[in-house]
């Protein structure tokens, strides 16, 4: 039973997706999606437990032995990422009910949940599979579903945002595909473990280097690494609230995972050092942190503000990868987890404001903090976590990131990480000022607190932010174990 879980995590949402599409309108599709996501979250938890206790799990699809068949290979790293995705899905779906009923036409609700489940299938699939071509297939399943989900937004700009994302996402995926083809032509294998064994003997071929470059650029597009982030702000701004919560907390994280896996496991020890990849990661990480944070300060749409902040946070994760040390990758993984918590909570709170007032421009939210105290509280905690105030999850990730930078004696990076936090103080401060210190408009006085069904998922993430700011056993412990698995990391 133990190793079947890896496949069940992909198959259950995949089967549920078409069922959700044909269910009658009303709340039945939502109920199905909720149950499926919760089951996945429990299974992912069990899977991580099994991996931590028993070591790597391997599942051969259809009984074909690797490297010929597709193998699902689960270690602490991907079990950890799968757990993040599944738990965020399980928390987002209860939240989605009311916000989707308000933002999405009734006849499209079953299709909405169907697409959400497909997106979940793709994201979980990427984490489970041990086959580089299979990664491409799941990448496209999740991407196609997310293009459709983004286009469901109320504003007509949602269509252009989805189109823009589709074009850039497809170019990214095709670059990845070219890279996989070139690697296959040198190794004759697609199984990650097998490719990792063969690659050292063919490393001197230019084809391998070209394949590496194509894969890295393709994934950098998918994870919205600055300056390839142009699709992200629009996509997050105009997507329905629940979709923004889900994508912001999972999609880029899974892309970071793929990058880690390929950089440090597929390619042999120290290979990345021989290419300009590490320097490029550090440079674009630094540029992303500063420039995207400055952009965030000047946004008048609060969803867009947080979207730019997401680009900056991706910069932190990539910076950690760029250090190419165990400490750097650990910090990157911790931030991956914590950022999912804080952005999830923040976008949920923004979604609650949109649920009440139907808009999210800076001047329209003046003084709403008093009318919606609980939602405001969530924004404050999420914002503090984003800044990295001690006692919140954000502090833990910043702490490990700074330690990793000091270990490398990368003083510029240390300065940038701290300066990035200062910039976060500015944009979070702007948000809180508008919500709390600006006078309430007349329409604002009539606004009531968000309904319980929005607050409960929101606060489960808010408490997670506080909890993982104090108790770091799970996050740091698992991240360290996962980072140790990536054998290719140099010393």
């Amino acid at each position, binding site marked *: 039973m133990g190793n079947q879980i890896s496949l069940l995590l992909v198959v259950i949402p995949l089967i549920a997706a078409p069922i959700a599409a044909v269910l009658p309108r009303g709340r039945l599709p939502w109920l199905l999606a909720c149950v499926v996501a919760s089951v996945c979250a429990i299974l992912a938890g069990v899977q991580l437990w099994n991996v931590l206790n028993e070591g790597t799990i391997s599942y051969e699809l259809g009984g074909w032995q690797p490297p010929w068949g597709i193998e699902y290979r689960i270690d602490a790293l991907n079990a950890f990422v799968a757990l993040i995705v599944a738990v965020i899905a399980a928390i987002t779906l209860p939240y989605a009910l009311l916000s989707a009923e308000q933002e999405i036409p009734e006849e499209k609700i079953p299709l909405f949940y169907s697409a959400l489940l497909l997106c979940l299938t793709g994201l979980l699939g990427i984490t489970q599979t041990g086959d580089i071509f299979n990664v*491409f297939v799941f990448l496209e399943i999740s991407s196609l579903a997310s293009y459709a989900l983004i286009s469901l937004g109320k504003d007509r700009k949602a269509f252009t945002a989805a189109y823009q994302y589709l074009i850039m996402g497809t170019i990214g995926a095709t670059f990845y595909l070219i890279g996989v083809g070139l690697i296959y032509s040198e190794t004759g294998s697609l199984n990650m473990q097998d490719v990792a064994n063969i690659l050292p003997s063919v490393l001197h071929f230019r084809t391998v280097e070209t394949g590496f470059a194509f894969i890295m650029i393709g994934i950098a597009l998918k994870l919205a690494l600055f300056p390839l982030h142009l699709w992200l702000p629009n996509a997050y701004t105009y997507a329905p609230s629940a979709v923004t919560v889900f994508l912001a907390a999972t999609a880029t994280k899974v892309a970071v995972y793929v990058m880690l896996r390929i950089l440090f496991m597929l390619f042999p020890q120290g290979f990345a050092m021989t290419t300009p990849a590490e320097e490029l990661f550090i440079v674009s990480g630094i540029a992303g942190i500063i420039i995207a944070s400055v952009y965030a300060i000047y946004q008048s749409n609060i969803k867009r503000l947080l979207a730019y902040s997401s680009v900056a946070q991706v910069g932190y994760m990539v910076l950690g990868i760029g250090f190419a040390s165990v400490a750097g990758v650990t910090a990157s993984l911790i931030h991956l987890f914590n950022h999912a918590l804080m952005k999830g909570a923040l976008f949920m709170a923004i979604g609650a404001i949109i649920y009440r007032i139907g808009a999210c421009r800076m001047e329209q939210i003046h003084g709403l903090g008093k009318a919606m105290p609980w939602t405001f509280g969530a924004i404050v905690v999420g914002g503090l976590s984003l800044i990295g105030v001690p006692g919140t999850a954000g502090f833990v990730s910043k702490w490990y990131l700074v330690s990793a930078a000091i270990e490398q004696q990368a003083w510029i990076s240390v300065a940038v990480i701290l300066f990035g936090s200062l910039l976060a103080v500015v944009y979070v401060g702007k948000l809180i000022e508008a919500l709390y210190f600006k006078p309430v408009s007349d329409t604002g006085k009539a606004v009531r607190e968000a309904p319980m069904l929005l607050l409960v998922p929101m606060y489960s993430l808010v408490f997670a932010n506080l909890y993982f700011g104090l108790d770091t056993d799970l996050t740091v412990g698992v991240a360290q174990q996962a980072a140790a698995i990536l054998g290719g990391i140099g010393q």
Partner: protein
Amino acid sequence: MDFFIGHYNYWIVIILMMVGLYTVISRGNLIKKIIGLNIFQVSVFFLYISLGAVEGGAAPIIAEGVKVYSNPLPHVLILTAIVVGVATTALALALVVRIKESYGTIEEDEIHNLDHSL
């Protein structure tokens, strides 16, 4: 010279790839962008198909008297990629229909103007 003629299929791949990518970047018409994207994807299909071909190899169906077969795996992989490409194109076209319905145009600069004149 042999380098050029012997690898003619790869040269076609590179040319198609550049044509496709350039079209996506330079054209403002949303349909033309999709066409460019398709050309770009097709070039990758060619790349994979070329990789699978073995000189003098027959189609990978076991038959008497045949010793050398082409490698079927890249061809199977690219079947999957073609399906993905078709799905992407369908979704992109559907989005263009919705954009045309709500904006009345499919030119990128006109859409941009409409969004910013409000």
